[in-house]
């Protein structure tokens, strides 16, 4: 519910940028995925899950690709993304998935968390950026909470009993809600501040020198 409201605010402010757009696509995709999840045939569910993990990875890595300034890190993201896609193709065609594609989820979490940490390190190095007022900071924190909070659950899901899955599955809802709240906050920050802040010309005050 929160994301559409935030998008309405964005629409009213007439500010569009690639990252909010990606968040929008991600939101719609998640909704559709969960909506049609039960309707999907069980024998084909592994493709469905693999597609979801890959798509989620691509959305998060694209957001980070646009956030990170270092060209070297961008190249690393591209390289690992390609590797990840190749791995997903091999994995889905060779391995049997029990409940969830735990290994790709684990790899996705490690990769995205690494990108986020490099983004946060970049922010730390830049003393001029007030990152708590930067909407991308909250998007990345949201992603980090979501991935880290559900990491162990998805990794260990095949070892858990049905009751445990149902009980701990609720924990993933909490991190999802936190993630969506942070996405919403970031979109509100974005709509207030604008993505491309006009760089103010740095005018250095200089003493008045008349005759001298």
């Amino acid at each position, binding site marked *: 519910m929160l994301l559409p409201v935030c998008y309405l605010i964005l629409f009213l402010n007439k500010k569009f940028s690639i990252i909010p757009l990606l968040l929008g696509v991600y939101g719609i995709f998640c909704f559709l995925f969960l909506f049609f999840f039960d309707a999907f045939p069980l024998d084909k569910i592994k493709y469905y899950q693999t597609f979801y993990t890959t798509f989620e990875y691509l959305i998060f890595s694209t957001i980070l690709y646009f956030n990170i300034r270092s060209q070297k890190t961008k190249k690393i993201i591209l390289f690992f993304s390609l590797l990840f896609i190749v791995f997903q193709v091999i994995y889905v065609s060779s391995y049997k998935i029990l409940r969830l594609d735990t290994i790709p989820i684990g790899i996705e979490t490690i990769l995205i968390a690494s990108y986020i*940490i490099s983004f*946060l390190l970049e*922010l*730390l190095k830049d*003393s001029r950026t*007030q*990152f*708590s007022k930067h909407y991308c*900071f909250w998007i990345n*924190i949201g992603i*980090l*909470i979501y991935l*880290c*909070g559900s*990491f*162990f*659950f998805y990794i*260990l899901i095949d*070892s*858990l009993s049905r009751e*445990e899955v149902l009980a*701990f599955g609720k*924990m993933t809802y909490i991190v999802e809600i936190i993630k969506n709240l942070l996405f919403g906050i970031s979109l509100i920050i974005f709509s207030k501040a604008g993505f491309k802040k006009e760089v103010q*010309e740095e*005018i*250095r*005050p*200089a*003493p*008045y*020198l*008349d*005759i*001298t």
Partner: protein
Amino acid sequence: MFFLQSTAPSPTIVLILGTLCMFILVGGIIIFMLLHQRKVEGHNKQIEQMEADHQKILLNASIRLQEEERQRLAADLHDDAGPLLATARLYLNENLINQDKAALLQSILQTRQIIDETIMLVRNISHNLMPPTLKNFGLESAVTDLFQKISGSGVVNASSRFHDYQERMNEERELIVFRVVQELINNILKHSKSSFIHLTQNLQDEKFFIRIHHDGRGILQADFDRLNKSYDGLGLKNISSRMRIMQGQISFERDISQTYFKVTLELPKADPNAKLKLRSN
């Protein structure tokens, strides 16, 4: 043995502990980032305060310098031009009374001489404000002229060489650079007891460089920074202000051979204020 015998922890415990650790880790990262930001903000505020204080010192220095210059101008006009014009007036008054033709002619000639002297004096004052060589022929000629005058005294061997100055800077910037060079040379002549001053100009990576070498007693960057922050060293503060206007940098050091003192002026080739001026127009 105990560890070998003990059973592996259940996935539930791993899940709970692992997730808890993850939350602690992420929470730690967020808290660290926010605390770091607060620290950086405090530090930036401190720097801004220091910058403002420094700015105040520079402003005071420039106001003092401006007042001194005005006083010098007033003194020049009052002490030199004033008496000359008063004397000329005296001669003219005498002409009204004196009817003797020879005396009248003598008086007129003397009046003319006094007026010529006054014209020369006013010209000198105006040249001090804006050297005509600089205005008409540019920085290179003005600096060469200045160095020739210094060499002419026979005490100091002064020379200059402009390597890449085919295209002149705008008048305003030329005047500022010239004033900085003038102030530096003035300081060298006043304090360093050097017998040799050499100035070179060149361009490097879109930057305009002027390097002044001298063999006397000089100052180093630390001395310059110290004097710049103190209430003494008016001339140096003035140099600092001028460099700031041009968004340039000045550095004081010894040259590689450790024989000479070297002052380097580094300015952007293009006028960084031009965009602002255009915008304000």
